């Protein structure tokens, strides 16, 4: 297994995965803008709009606000991008030990925490409010998200993405056992990716981009990219864990196409919901998450644990 050829192929695949996620996440950002434009009855931006935006930000002057904390202001964007890149390698089953749901959960949290720290580092009243809301968001979605992961672990006895897929090949699809958990996972996406109706973190109209307010140039580009990658990674994670078992045993190339297809479908649906809904107030969003999403995930956890104890489930 550990011959140098296989190892180098794997490293190549990992670089490919990181490249794929970073390019595709910008494409997903364009899908979001285009869907919004279509809903408004507009033409919308051309497909390379997000790439042009990123290139422009990279060429722009990088300003450092005098009130900001220099160290944090510089470190958080880099850390955020590093976490997102590691995450993009981890979601694909390339390295056996790296593609682990616990690691994925932690890295997703790192990206969000970096955004929170970025807001606090810039020391602007608006971005501090944005950071507080981002922390509230963390409180809201981490609980159901972790419960979903625990449910998957309880059912399959593993957190490794390889093993989860092979478990599904043996015992049938995860989505059949865990429909409510899958629903809770989907419901966690909009607040994690800051989409309507739960875009309370960077509420453009009242917080002026919230946590990203003071960033400009390169740092803004990096933070935006990491944030978009997080959104796309959630879509990829969903498609790999919940939908891709049947092609995995079949054909690996087909499996890649399937993952791309399902993740883009996921993005399309999320963009439609984003364009068609208005932003909820933070307390209403909290109510929704703490009552509905957590309840969905807990019900499914109980529905897995009880048959496990009784010995009905494998």
């Amino acid at each position, binding site marked *: 297994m550990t011959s140098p050829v296989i190892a180098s192929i794997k490293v190549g695949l990992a670089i490919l995965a990181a490249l794929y996620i970073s390019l595709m996440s910008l494409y997903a950002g364009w899908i979001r803008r285009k869907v919004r434009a279509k809903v408004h009855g*507009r033409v919308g931006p051309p497909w390379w709009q997000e790439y042009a935006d990123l290139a422009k930000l990279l*060429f722009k*002057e990088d300003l450092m606000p005098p009130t900001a904390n220099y160290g944090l202001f510089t470190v958080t964007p880099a850390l955020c991008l590093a976490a997102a890149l590691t995450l993009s390698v981890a979601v694909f089953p390339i390295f056996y030990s790296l593609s682990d749901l616990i690691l994925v959960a932690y890295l997703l949290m790192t990206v969000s925490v970096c955004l929170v720290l970025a807001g606090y580092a810039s020391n602007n009243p608006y971005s501090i409010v944005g950071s507080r809301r981002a922390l509230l968001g963390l409180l809201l979605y981490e609980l159901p998200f972790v419960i979903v992961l625990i449910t998957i672990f309880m059912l399959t006895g593993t957190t490794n993405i390889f093993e989860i897929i092979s478990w599904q090949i043996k015992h049938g699809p995860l989505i059949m056992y865990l429909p409510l958990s899958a629903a809770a996972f989907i419901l966690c996406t909009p607040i994690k990716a800051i989409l309507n109706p739960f875009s309370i973190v960077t509420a453009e109209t009242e*917080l002026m981009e919230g946590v990203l307010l*003071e*960033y400009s140039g390169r740092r803004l580009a990096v933070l935006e990219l990491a944030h978009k990658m997080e959104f796309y990674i959630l879509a990829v994670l969903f498609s790999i864990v919940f939908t891709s078992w049947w092609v995995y045993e079949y054909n690996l190339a087909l499996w890649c196409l399937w993952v791309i297809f399902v993740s883009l479908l996921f993005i399309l649906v999320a963009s439609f919901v984003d364009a068609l809904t208005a932003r909820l107030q933070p307390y209403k969003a909290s109510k929704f998450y703490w009552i509905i999403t957590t309840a969905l995930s807990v019900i499914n956890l109980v529905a897995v644990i009880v048959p496990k104890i009784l010995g009905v489930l494998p």
Partner: protein
Amino acid sequence: MGVKERAFRRSLWIYHFNASSCNACEIEILAAISPRYDPERLGVKLVGSPRHADILLVAGPCNRVVAPMLKKVYEQMPEPKIVVAVGTCALGRGVWYDSYAIVGVDEVIPVDVYVPGCPPRPYMIVAALAEAAKLLEERAARFEKR
């Protein structure tokens, strides 16, 4: 034309500043970014922070209270940047040309593109944005990051 100029030309992030305008110019700016004209086709995006912006849209004559704020917002924008002054007020102080309270936009910050009219038509604002894109491209070619 290199990647840099092309990127600057097709990605215009706008920050809109109200320098004591009567709000009619604001309404026309909003009409200019409405679905009818759809400047997002050209890469225009309205941003909430001057730190993200490439273009500063100023409307109004700019009185003494607003002038320091306008200067501050201009200084907060990263280079390269373009200022578009919308409306007769911003162009030559309009009906307030001899008022003691008015400073004038172009005496506070350097203005690159003027849009005449009280208020100007939305398509004139879109044309001004196209002009600003051209200027921004030229300025980007000359701009070297420190």
